[in-house]
């Protein structure tokens, strides 16, 4: 029983339903997906299957899951530091075990030697994505991509090592937090002979079923966030995201930035000021020169007084590509954790972007935002990490084999 990948729109079968009972209404979902592919747009797709616990994505494939697969409601980004003495041979053992765990868990069954296999029976769209930091590639004696290093320092940064860097990334996402918790623990148990936990950052979006799948996420500023993303399954997406270089061919890079949103000072800004800072209507997400989220912003349009309608220092004016290759694919999450000190909230964005080359594609955008962006008044990057996301593997292989084999 299969269903076309809701985000790829070209009929690739990466999304499956495990149980017959969940297939009600499947025909309607397929039809809508096909219509959307014909239109070539990322229109939201109503999910008519109702119960999604049985939704399973394939672990094996040319690319790792969790990037082009439909975004799930919850994600845990977990960074590990490798123990002293872990060498290339040990990394091979580690990645074989972790790949096997991920493949089984994504199928909705317990990992090998899983002590709680019952928790694995609801995959709920589980994906597991592995990323290598510079330390991992060095231990593997592999060629390090030129871009695989901490990002250059930015003036707006106030980075905390507790949310930065790391040798090995485990990115676990699903529409069910029990599933995420179990998968993370299983993977960490199997990694503990090799590495120690450096940090874990948990993020969330709207729960599954709360709104139509594919709706652009709102961050905790209320801002529609991610409007101009490339669509998975399109040539543009493939060009933006997938590397063609050496052992990374079929892989990509992840830039993860923990961006604190100062909700207390944001509260002081009225809707007009918020919209002006973003360059989009805060309520609808439409550019200030348009009426719908999908409208192209007109950065030249002026007011009767002669100013541009969209401020040149608004977020969308500063973040738009100057060069055609300055495009990234964003797949971020919100975070909201107990505050320390006097504030009532500690909230923000797990900004996550994927691109073939972060130095070429992401850094120019970030430099412009660093120089000027009205949103910087209320936002502070407090964590930063870059990981190489190696290509996927076929059944019988393991993630990282192009580096380690």
């Amino acid at each position: 029983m299969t269903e076309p990948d809701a985000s790829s729109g070209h009929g690739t079968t990466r999304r499956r339903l495990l149980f017959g009972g969940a297939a009600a209404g499947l025909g309607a979902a397929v039809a809508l997906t096909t219509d959307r592919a014909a239109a070539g747009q990322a229109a939201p797709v109503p999910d008519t299957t109702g119960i999604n616990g049985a939704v399973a994505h394939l672990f094996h494939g040319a690319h790792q899951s969790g990037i082009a697969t439909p975004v799930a409601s919850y994600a845990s980004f977990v960074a590990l530091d490798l123990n002293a003495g872990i060498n290339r041979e040990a990394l091979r053992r580690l990645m074989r075990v972790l790949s096997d765990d991920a493949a089984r868990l994504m199928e909705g069954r317990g990992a090998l030697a899983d002590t709680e296999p019952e928790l694995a029976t609801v995959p709920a769209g589980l994906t597991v994505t592995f990323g290598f930091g510079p330390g991992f590639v060095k231990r593997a004696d592999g060629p390090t991509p030129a871009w695989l290093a901490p990002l250059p320092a930015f003036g707006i940064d106030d980075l905390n090592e507790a949310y930065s860097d790391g040798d090995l990334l485990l990115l676990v996402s699903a529409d069910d937090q029990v599933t995420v918790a179990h998968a993370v623990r299983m993977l960490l148990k199997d990694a503990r002979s090799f590495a120690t936990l450096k940090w874990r950052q948990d993020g969330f979006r709207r729960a599954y079923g709360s709104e139509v799948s594919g709706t652009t996420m709102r961050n905790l500023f209320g801002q529609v966030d991610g409007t101009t993303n490339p669509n998975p399954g399109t040539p543009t997406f493939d060009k933006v995201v997938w590397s063609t270089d050496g052992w990374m061919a079929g892989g990509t890079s992840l830039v993860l930035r923990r961006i604190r949103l100062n909700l207390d000072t944001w509260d002081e800004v009225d809707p007009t000021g918020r919209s002006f800072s973003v360059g989009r209507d805060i309520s609808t997400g439409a550019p200030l020169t348009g009426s719908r989220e999908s409208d192209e912003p007109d950065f030249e349009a002026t007011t009767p007084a002669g100013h541009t309608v969209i401020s040149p220092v608004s977020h969308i004016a500063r973040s738009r590509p100057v060069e055609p290759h300055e495009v990234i694919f964003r797949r971020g999450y919100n975070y909201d954790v107990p505050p320390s000190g006097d504030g009532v909230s500690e909230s923000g964005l797990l900004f996550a972007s994927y691109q073939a080359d972060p130095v070429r594609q992401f850094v120019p955008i970030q430099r412009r935002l660093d120089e000027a962006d009205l949103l910087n008044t209320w936002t502070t990057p407090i964590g930063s990490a870059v990981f190489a996301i190696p290509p996927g593997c076929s059944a019988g292989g393991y993630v990282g084999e192009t580096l380690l084999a």
Partner: protein
Amino acid sequence: MFTVPTHARLSAVAVLAAASLAACASSDDATEAGSATNVDVAIVDAWTKATDSGMTATFGEITNEGDEAITLIAATTDASSMVELHETSMDDAGGMSMSEKDGGFTIEAGDTLVLEPGGNHIMLMGVTDPIEAGADVPVTLEFEGGGTVEMDTVAKDYTGANEEYVGDKDHGSMEHSGDAGSDEDHSGNDH
């Protein structure tokens, strides 16, 4: 003991089995053993508990795909100098204890022998070289009548499978008498 005669009994069947189980990410693929030795089994989910030294155990599911009952009578592996087939049962005190299975495990046609923590398992003793997580640990299964099957297992970190051992016969210098703290972890117990 892993002996030369055991090597000699490894047949073409065993080689085939090893080839199809080589990768851990596909360890759900059943191993098909042919009929050359009259043992036709499918093996899935085979793993061995990682250990630095001493005792450990191998688990997995062995399905008899043949038409007649078969009996697993022994197992050998390079990883251990002494391998036994064990069963686990509740002792008088309510704890779980394990002991050697007399006569081995008979698997009826179509049935599956489940080797699992807390249940039947293949006991590895006298481990001297560490069995590291993620390592391949090939185990040769010997069946009544002389058939052998190579079972590729992968080593996994596992903190369970600590049943006490109440072996009732001499295991050389092994301490195994179920004294307090005796379990499969027995680091440094292989003296």
